[in-house]
């Protein structure tokens, strides 16, 4: 334990599982929602009271747990694991309620077309309010103890996700003064602190997804945002050795081989080739991002009760890139 602490201190910041606020970011189609759900499930299993926050309003978390997350109150989807869907419009109303303290005034604002146009015209205001809501939950205390031990945010696809994370900084820049300026500063402090917040960038072993992940990492770093690790999702594995592949190739290329035997040899070789390709992409992601990369296998069935999500969660939480050297 002592040596672990020393190592953690050496690296400057705790592993992702040691941070209260985790953001899961990635290109559309890489499995962000799945990774966020698996991460949150793992944190809850490790005994943390965990909130999984869905931002993209796609309500995909529901399909993974068989429960639809509520827009109002967190719903317990597994023991110790709660889910909530954050919607910018609703969060804006909530924010106004807190700020203005006068219900009719809030209702008038919410109905006002001009107000909606201001929120649209003020670049990043919707993101700021969303981020503010997340920050509020991450820092909420009840009876002297934090309400949530861990928050996992399933962020929108890369560009929009980065805009969300930069919202506080942008708002400080745009709003020269006033409550929004001050609050943005408070939010930014938490979002940028590598002991409190960590960003996991998800990719798949495909060129575009890896390129986009690497570019996202550098954009986030330039913005001073704490990137903790990368996750490569859907990585194919092979049990076939180089010697196996040699024998399989010989059989596959022999004209005397029957069609079923050839098909089997080719199917085995395709697995070996696919796994080698994916391993190269994992190496590339690690090299180009300079981040520890957690590797997740392909899981064909993620429906509730199939055990697919649980398997992913176990793989994720056992990975040193996510949990450090000592596991969760």
């Amino acid at each position, binding site marked *: 334990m002592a040596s672990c602490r020393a190592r953690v201190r050496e690296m400057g910041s705790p592993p992702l599982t040691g941070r209260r606020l985790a953001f899961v970011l990635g290109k559309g189609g890489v499995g962000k929602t799945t990774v966020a759900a698996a991460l949150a499930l793992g944190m809850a299993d490790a005994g943390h009271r965990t909130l999984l926050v869905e931002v993209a309003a796609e309500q995909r978390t529901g399909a993974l747990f068989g429960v639809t997350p509520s827009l109002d109150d967190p719903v317990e989807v597994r023991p110790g694991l709660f889910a909530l869907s954050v919607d910018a419009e609703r969060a804006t109303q909530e924010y106004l309620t807190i700020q203005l303290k006068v219900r009719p005034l809030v209702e*008038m604002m919410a109905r006002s077309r001009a107000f909606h146009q201001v929120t649209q015209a003020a*670049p990043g205001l919707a993101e700021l309010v969303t981020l503010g809501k997340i920050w509020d939950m991450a820092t909420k205390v009840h009876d002297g103890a934090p309400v949530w031990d861990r928050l996992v945010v399933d962020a929108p696809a890369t560009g929009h996700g980065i805009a969300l994370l930069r919202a506080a900084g942008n708002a400080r820049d745009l709003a020269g003064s006033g409550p929004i300026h001050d609050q943005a500063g408070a939010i930014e402090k938490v979002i940028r602190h590598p002991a409190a917040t960590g960003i996991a960038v998800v990719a798949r072993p495909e*060129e575009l997804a890896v390129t986009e992940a690497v570019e996202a990492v550098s954009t986030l770093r330039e913005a001073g945002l704490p990137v903790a690790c990368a996750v490569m999702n859907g990585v194919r594995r092979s*049990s076939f050795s180089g010697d196996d592949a040699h024998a399989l190739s010989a*059989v596959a290329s022999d004209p005397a081989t029957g069609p079923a035997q050839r098909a089997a040899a080719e199917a085995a070789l395709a697995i070996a080739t696919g796994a080698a390709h994916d391993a190269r992409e994992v190496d590339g992601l690690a090299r180009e991002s300079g981040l520890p990369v957690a590797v997740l296998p392909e899981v064909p069935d993620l429906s509730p009760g199939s055990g697919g999500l649980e398997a992913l969660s176990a793989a994720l939480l056992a990975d040193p890139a996510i949990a450090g050297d000592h596991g969760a």
Partner: protein
Amino acid sequence: MAPDPDLVGMLEHRRIVVVAGAGGVGKTTVSAALALGLASRGARVAVVTIDPARRLASALGIAHLGDEPDRVDPARITAAGMPMEGTLDALQLDPQATFDRLVAREAPDEAARQRILRNRVYRHLSTAVAGAQEFMAVERLHELVDSGRYDVVVLDTPPARNALDFLDAPERMTRFVEGRGLRLLLGPRSGAGRTGWRALQAGGHMVMSVVERLTGAQLLTDISEFLQSFDGMYQGFSDRASAVRFLLASDSTRFVVVTGPRPEPATEAIALWRRLRDDRYPLGAVVVNRVHLEPGGDGAPPDGLADLLAAAGAADPVGLAGRAADALAMARARAAADRHEVQAIAGALDGPPMVLVPALEDDPVEVAGLARVTRELEGR
């Protein structure tokens, strides 16, 4: 199932090909392969990519795809065994550069142009306003078609959360720039940091003063300035948006919807196709990319494989044959699942023209790989 149609042939003599679909289905590769096929048959083609497709760029022999078109060396294409009767240019969308040019074109004078380019709301616009990137993509398309340099422009659309955003973006953006209600309320604001300002409606005044209390005066000043600088320009924006909409709905255009053989992108592809059909946009075909084909052997077990592997020098031929048989069973199951998904798409859309592209082991890394995709899209 009927043999695949020749999608490249279907797209010949069109001026615009829009390639749309969910993220992660291989839209960029399909766009480039279609462009290659059209150029090969004699058209002057530009392909506009959205994602930083580095490997595609290097496959085409272009060091770095930029905002300006780069010509692909025809020798690279003929070397890959494809005839090259036309020309192929590639470029990558740069939303900010596109918008800056639009402002330069539409601004009445240099002072107005400078005022907009310096405005902080404007500088955040291309990343912060929903649909801005889609709007720029459509604008770039307009520029390229107008330039007269191309017979056909192939557009790889932005990976929107909802691929339908693409169609609504121009109008939404125009409405935003127009900002009718907001203009009325903000009125002319003079000088940064000024807190007192005229509002024309009492209710509106209330709203604005609350907003000002929350955001500070600076933001409202910036927004007001932004909208004022666009005065007299939004008609131009609006005209362009309708011109593009007209072009996209005309017979010069074809929409190609790309999906993978998986439920999530397929659901999006089906919704997109239906929306396009209902709004009478000209439909091309549905491309199902990365389909796993049925392995050989007609479903028979690979009996006797262990003996063959033993003869080929395998250390543990029985164990290896067992694992290979498992691999074959998995490949067959995957092919069956993909077939099922393809049939589900065809059924949901009443049999649209459909082209299947088999899963390659790797993304195309050279023109030869891209040409393979082109041939699949030609139904060969």
